[in-house]
């Protein structure tokens, strides 16, 4: 019946158009809210919380280049944000560079350092990769604490402010808020471009089944290495920008596994497969973290809260919030007949279910 099917197609496009319109409205509303935030913030403290959350978003998007495309979960991305911070600071203090030049040069330097690290750690999959990523942070913590002539050791390092002393505190926060947002937008654009490219297709094939991807001719090692270096670059930029804003570096906070786990939690909560997932996750987790620190600051209770939150996300929604909402919306789609992306895990689960159903049937 050609008329019925064309009718269904019409309805589908109508639904899709409505969905697209809804998404556009949401996006414009969110963008307006973000841009207007510094004007709406009642005081400098709330504004500084906004900068922290924007910084988390930049870190999470940087992390998601590796985590989202290849499925390699790195718990040690604090290594690159910390290195970015220290590289920027040292290039200003010892190199006498302009702060913004130092930020760029520092991030490029970190990207170069990430090449040998990537070569070593991407040779192994899963477990060993995570172990190496954690080891990197622990090494850098040891080095930055011991090598006090350069890094200032445990007493920390003061980073010169890029804006003059005449720029007041709230004004500083406002400028850095917009700078962080700009960094997030640039990183998202790069992520989006990769997502739609042949390169991105190869990376996602690696995520689903690395052996099959390799046998289909995807140069897996080179692809993984390139995206790893891109990820290190953006993470280092985020770390450097944060250092310029905060003005002080302490090894314990820079090279902390906690920072790396924040990035993972944010991306996972938002959804590592979706473009905006890490940003949504950063807003939720960043707000929760600041709230917990405010409430239970003196005790170690914020660690418990973080641990429980991570556990719940891993156990009950490993795909994240955005994909969950997406599938909810899809339920209202008149005919869900289009080809949709399916992960290897879902495929396995589905085939397992049908197998069990068949056994019951027998």
């Amino acid at each position, binding site marked *: 019946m050609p008329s019925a099917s064309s009718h269904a197609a019409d309805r589908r496009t109508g639904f899709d158009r409505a969905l697209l319109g809804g998404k556009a409205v949401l996006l414009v509303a969110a963008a307006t809210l973000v841009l207007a935030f510094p004007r709406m913030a009642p005081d400098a403290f709330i504004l500084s919380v906004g900068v922290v959350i924007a910084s988390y978003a930049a870190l999470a998007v940087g992390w998601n280049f590796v985590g989202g495309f290849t499925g390699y979960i790195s718990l040690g991305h604090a290594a690159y944000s910390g290195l970015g911070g220290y590289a920027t600071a040292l290039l200003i203090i010892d190199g006498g560079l302009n702060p913004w030049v130092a930020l760029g040069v520092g991030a490029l330097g970190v990207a170069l350092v990430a090449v040998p690290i990537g070569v070593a750690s991407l040779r192994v999959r*899963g477990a060993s990769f995570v*172990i190496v990523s954690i080891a990197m942070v622990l090494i850098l913590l*040891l080095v930055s604490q*011991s090598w006090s002539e350069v890094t200032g050791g445990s007493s920390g390092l003061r980073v010169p402010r890029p804006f003059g002393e005449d720029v007041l505190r709230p004004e500083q926060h406002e400028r850095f808020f917009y700078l962080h947002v700009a960094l997030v937008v640039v990183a998202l654009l790069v992520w989006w471009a990769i997502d739609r490219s042949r390169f991105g297709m190869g990376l996602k094939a690696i995520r689903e089944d690395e052996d099959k991807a390799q046998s289909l001719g995807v140069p897996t090692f080179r692809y993984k290495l390139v995206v790893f270096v891109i990820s290190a670059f953006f993470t280092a930029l985020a770390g450097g920008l944060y250092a310029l804003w905060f003005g002080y570096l302490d090894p314990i906070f820079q090279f902390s596994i906690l920072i790396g786990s924040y990035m993972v939690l944010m991306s996972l909560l938002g959804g590592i497969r979706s473009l905006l997932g890490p940003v949504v996750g950063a807003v939720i987790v960043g707000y929760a973290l600041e709230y917990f620190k405010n409430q239970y600051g003196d005790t*170690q209770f914020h*660690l418990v809260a973080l641990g429980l939150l991570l*556990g719940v996300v*891993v156990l009950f929604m490993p795909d994240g919030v955005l994909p969950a909402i997406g599938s909810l919306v899809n339920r209202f789609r008149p005919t869900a007949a289009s080809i949709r992306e399916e992960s290897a895990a879902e495929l396995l689960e589905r085939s397992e279910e049908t197998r069990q159903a068949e056994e019951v049937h027998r």
Partner: protein
Amino acid sequence: MSGPLLLQSIILGLLLGGLYALLAAGLTLYFGVMRVVMIAHSAFLILAAYLAWYFHRETGIDPLFSLVITVPLFFVTGVAMQRLLLSRLRPATLTMMSVLLTFAIALTIEGMLGYVFSGTQRRIQLGYSGSNFEVFGANIAAVKLIAFGLAALALLGLYLVMKKTRFGQALRATIQHPEAARLLGINTDRIAGYGFGIGLATAAIGGTALSLDSTIYPSLHWHWIGPLMAIIVIGGLGSIPGAAIAAMVLGVSQSLLQVPMGTTWAQTVFYLALFATLMIRPQGFFGGRLAQRF
């Protein structure tokens, strides 16, 4: 380096290596039975040390007796963790997600320890804490020897269970080839649960040994998990003898390097060895095909 000092470094390295070996054996056992990297292993280690300290403070009895409580408790916790939490994860992403789940458990334990016992550094004072004896001019503390003895006994027990009992045979079969083990009628899910329990029991023993001669605080577990994970990768993931040998070698190296380089820099030997291993032999020195694929 003078003769007695060299000897002392080697002996201290061997004693430390024994503790590393026991803990790394537990860590590699989890990986063997379930392909899980158990980040919370060292958090449980510190938890056991705190329980030993608390036991000693409340009762005044030697902390070694806390083992009677902590070992069964940790075994049951391990079985429950495997059956209730880890087995819920999807098989396709098990390795990655288990890292995150056990990381979450480690954070929760660290936070609870800080919340309940505060971040103050704790240390057990015993009658024999200060006593030591000389071997060819080298000074060895009695508590370090006791800790080593405890670790060595536990490792020997683990070896005997793995090699001599029917349960150990089933456990090794599950590690080698889970599907084939299932075909032979082994209930691999239950065996994996018990394997997990045994792994956690090693943390209980290690923690008690640790509490005898070191100062403990909630975030101490980060100093242990790095070296332990490096050891199991170097030894080959899933290989208990590999883990034990790598632990002894690295323990002695660390102890020897401490004299010229200082404590902090000497720790980097674990990570340098880790990177060297990945460049030369990514599957580790004793692991088979298993280690390379994960």
